[in-house]
């Protein structure tokens, strides 16, 4: 019995050590290495911010970051305003349409990006095709599989039907019910969906490149071909931004969860 216990705890520890080593070599080591490398002076003598200042002075850095942020925010907002009422409707009324909508929302993951980009672009009105704002709609589409699931989980965690009925019987309209009761109750899910769409949009490369628009990811590829240390600084910058974004999501969803409480 005692030796069994020792064996199993030994086993546990060796797994933990192995996983940590693997994670360190594959994940943390490259990050540390490239972080150090990005601060090196060209030629290898000493450390400075020179690669980062080079980055900031590159033509197109700020405009591309600005474009990406703008499109990502718009995509996040559009996605939420489209999906929240849809998901509330699907969860509140019969479930008949739900599998269909679920299927449609999964499609962006299944359809090859090239077909998606070209096909969906052809379906857009021409005034949209000529502006970078067409990307917002693509970003909304690629965000659908994730927002569907996030919002669905959030809505299933609350007793949607009785909350809606309570609100209605107290004299509230549908709009009031959604804004004052449902949205606050699924706040965690909504912020999660918002940030997922935002993160996906910020990092989207393939469609943007296929349709010849310049956003931060496409600019990165071009810029990094000119300066190797600058390219590394760029990847460290992107990585740190992504981590910061993820941390924000985690923080917001936790806050939302706490507000809703646990015993419903």
């Amino acid at each position, binding site marked *: 019995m005692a030796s069994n216990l020792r064996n199993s705890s030994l086993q546990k520890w060796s797994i933990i050590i192995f996983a940590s080593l693997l994670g360190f070599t594959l994940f943390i080591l490259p990050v540390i290495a490239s972080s150090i490398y990005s601060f090196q002076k060209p030629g290898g003598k000493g450390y400075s911010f020179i690669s980062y200042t080079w980055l900031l002075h590159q033509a197109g850095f700020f405009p591309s970051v600005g474009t990406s942020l703008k499109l990502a925010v718009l995509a996040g907002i559009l996605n939420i305003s489209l999906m929240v009422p849809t998901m509330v409707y699907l969860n509140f009324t019969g479930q008949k349409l739900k599998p269909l909508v679920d299927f449609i929302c999964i499609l962006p993951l299944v359809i090859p990006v090239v077909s998606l980009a070209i096909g969906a672009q052809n379906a857009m009105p021409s005034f949209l095709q000529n502006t970078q704002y067409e990307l917002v709609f693509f970003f909304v589409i690629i965000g659908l599989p994730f927002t569907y699931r996030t919002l669905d989980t959030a809505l299933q965690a*609350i007793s949607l039907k009785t*909350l809606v*009925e309570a609100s209605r019987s*107290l*004299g509230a309209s549908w709009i009031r019910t959604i804004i004052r009761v449902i949205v*606050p109750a699924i706040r965690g899910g909504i912020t999660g969906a918002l940030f997922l769409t935002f993160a996906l949009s910020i990092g989207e490369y393939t469609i943007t490149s296929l349709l010849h628009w310049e956003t931060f990811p496409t600019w990165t590829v071009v810029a990094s071909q000119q300066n190797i240390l600058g390219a590394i600084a760029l990847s460290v910058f992107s990585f740190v931004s992504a981590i910061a974004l993820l941390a924000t999501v985690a923080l917001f969803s936790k806050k939302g969860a706490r507000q809703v409480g646990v015993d419903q």
Partner: protein
Amino acid sequence: MNKKDRVSSTLELRGVSRNFGPVTALDGLDLVVAPGELVALLGPSGCGKTTALRIVAGLEVATSGELFVNGERYNEVAANARDMGMVFQSYSLFPNLNVSENIEYGLRARKIGSAQRAKRVAEMLELVALESKAKSFPHQLSGGQQQRVALARALAIEPRVLLLDEPLSALDAQVRSQIRDEIRRIQLELGITTLFVTHDQEEALTISDRVGVMSNGRLEQIDIPDVLYNNPVSTFVANFVGTMNHIPTIASGDTVDIFGKKIRVKNSKGVNGSVSALVRPESIEVTRTSGSGNAKIITRSFLGASSQIICQTAEGAVIQALMPSHESGDLHPGEDVTLNVTLNEVLVSHV
């Protein structure tokens, strides 16, 4: 919000039916709830009582039939325009709003000014004795407190009719009777017309003016609790309300033989053969016999003023009797006793 300030409403359902596909949940319900009256709809799950309540609330649409409040047709009135306060089994407080905000939710929807809202919230908190919890969130409250907030929230809008959908089912036994009495006290204090749905006969009998027993979407009997208990019109009502002994016996003509005594049959006259006679525990008298009686005592449980005696007849039937404790103190398990029925008329059901 005193009894004098407000006019109570009459609620009337005429032939209200509801079908879900091929299933008839409600089958032509006729019901009038008088102003200030508390009527309970009692029945097993699936009897249509909740459907009836939801149709009154406007959360469900009647397939046929009409609904009136104070003589005004309500079928087409939207749920949020009906002015009905509803209390749900699952409390369904808004989790993101605190107690005060929950109570004032309906007032905000009615665009009532903040000073008046604050005054009403204070009144409601006092009514349910939760003044100290005004700023608490629902998840910080116990089940009983949450249900009191739900009641205050429903009453804050001065509803025409108060609808209670199994409001006590999610609470534990002790809190249940406390909230039950509180609901009745408040209902009487405000004189508000109330429709109360429950599957618990004790709940229904203790606080209602009238109780309607439902089965298969129909109202079997509606009357004051005393009549339901003492004069059930059908075996279904007799079984559902209160405790009932089923004594196996033989019917011949209009009488049955119970413990050697001929008793008139109240329902299904002219039945012959094996039947069960339905007898309340308090209609059975247990007396000690020196010789061999017609039953043996299994247990006697002291309940205070009365005691429950469980006996087994020579034929093997288990009979429950309820007697004043001072008359049954000398009855002990294992003893031979004689059972008697103190009734002139009895309901029977076919076996």
